[in-house]
């Protein structure tokens, strides 16, 4: 299984451990990640807010690169996934949009044909690799660790697009269960982490992440796992910000799901990766680091 590996910009900038974990864990399942030469940013929320055509063209350009590589794209971040998936779906369904985008892409010698699919880490692990394979790759299961899984908005919404792909957060839940941990239901699981408002309205962004942390705390989870780097940032770094601004302590360790998976497969996290978690995870994952 080969994928055009769409890294995005937040992970290489601030969450290297996510990239490293993916590069280490996925080969175990026979997944080959081919780097996308010259890929540009997926044009997330901020760019879509500025200009519609730029969003279509920029996302479509990445889709063209993957089409040239002849492989489906695999994204890690929810924003990249939503942007590329939406454009891929819109251009396939609406010929007038496709022509409009190809008119812009022609200036850079690219043409969108709509030959590939857009997938994210959960799709690949749950859909293509399959739960059974994931399960028997687990060497040291977490036997009942109480984990709150934060799917992130664009993993499951807008349903209108995802609905046909029958995607929901129960895929992430079953992956978490596969590692031996227990995915604890908590109120307002579908709610946003507040990420997109960061740098636009930090006060509100913190208030939303605080609601999320409060709901997780009420459900008495021992750790939080995320798929989207924005959610990770909001819930991990966010706990420090919430402590400073609202003087509330949650100390909920937050880990990327891929790190949880690596640990359950018996791989050890390196020191710098452990330090990159602002909320210490050392005592929770003793013996596995």
């Amino acid at each position, binding site marked *: 299984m080969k994928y055009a590996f769409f890294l995005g910009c937040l992970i290489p900038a601030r969450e290297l451990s996510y990239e490293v974990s993916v590069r280490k864990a996925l080969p175990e399942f026979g997944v080959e990640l081919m780097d996308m030469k010259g890929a540009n940013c997926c044009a997330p929320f901020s760019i879509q807010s500025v*200009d519609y055509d730029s969003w279509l063209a920029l996302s479509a350009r990445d889709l063209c690169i993957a089409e040239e590589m002849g492989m489906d794209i695999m994204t890690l971040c929810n924003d990249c996934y939503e942007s590329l998936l939406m454009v891929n779906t819109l251009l396939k369904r609406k010929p007038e949009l496709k022509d409009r985008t190809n008119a*812009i892409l022609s200036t850079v010698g690219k043409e969108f044909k709509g030959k590939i699919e857009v997938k994210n880490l959960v799709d690949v692990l749950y859909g293509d690799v399959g739960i059974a394979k994931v399960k028997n790759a687990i060497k040291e299961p977490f036997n009942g660790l109480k984990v709150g899984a934060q799917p992130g908005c664009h993993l499951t919404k*807008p349903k209108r697009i995802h609905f046909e792909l029958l995607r929901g957060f129960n895929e992430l839940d079953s992956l978490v269960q596969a590692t031996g941990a227990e995915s604890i239901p908590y109120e307002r699981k579908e709610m946003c982490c507040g990420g997109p408002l960061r740098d636009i309205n930090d006060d509100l962004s913190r208030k939303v992440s605080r609601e999320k942390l409060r709901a997780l705390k009420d459900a008495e989870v021992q750790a939080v796992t995320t798929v989207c780097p924005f959610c990770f940032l909001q819930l991990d770094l966010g706990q420090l910000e919430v402590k400073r601004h609202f003087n509330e302590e949650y100390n909920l360790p937050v880990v990327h799901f891929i790190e949880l998976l690596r640990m359950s497969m018996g791989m050890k996290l390196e020191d710098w990766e452990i330090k990159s978690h602002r909320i210490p995870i050392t005592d929770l994952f003793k013996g596995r680091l």
Partner: protein
Amino acid sequence: MSELDLNFMGEVADTPRGNGILLCIQCGRCSSGCPVARLTNEHNPRRLMEMVILGLKKEILPTELPWYCLSCFTCLDRCPQGGDVGDVMFAIRNLAVKNGNIPAGVFGQAKALYETTRVINPVRSALEKRESMGLGKLDNEGLTDVQKILKKTGMEKIVASK
């Protein structure tokens, strides 16, 4: 007394992703699920749609009303009339930006995209860490293409304006 602009609703409806404004029946399913609306009365997607229908252009475009939205699409999934509230918010933001109302954060990301093909770039220490890990450098080969595209779509003017 606020002055009403007759064809503001039409303008939003003709902006890409803005057509949903014509279907809104003001039922309130979107606003009660909106995470931000539950935290502050400043933001209410339903009331914003109502203000667009009324034509309160001056109360919306130059203000921070368009910039409370998380684009988490909870509203869009709940709208019974296919009003696509989430999409209409993007249309309103596009019009706000055309009117010169662009938050610093958004402008920063747009500028970074124009200069480095990425909206967020690693600090130097993170770059060195990557090289030491043997993960290679982040390539900007697509920069000329990105700039050509932004020129064609006219977004270049917005980025270069400030």
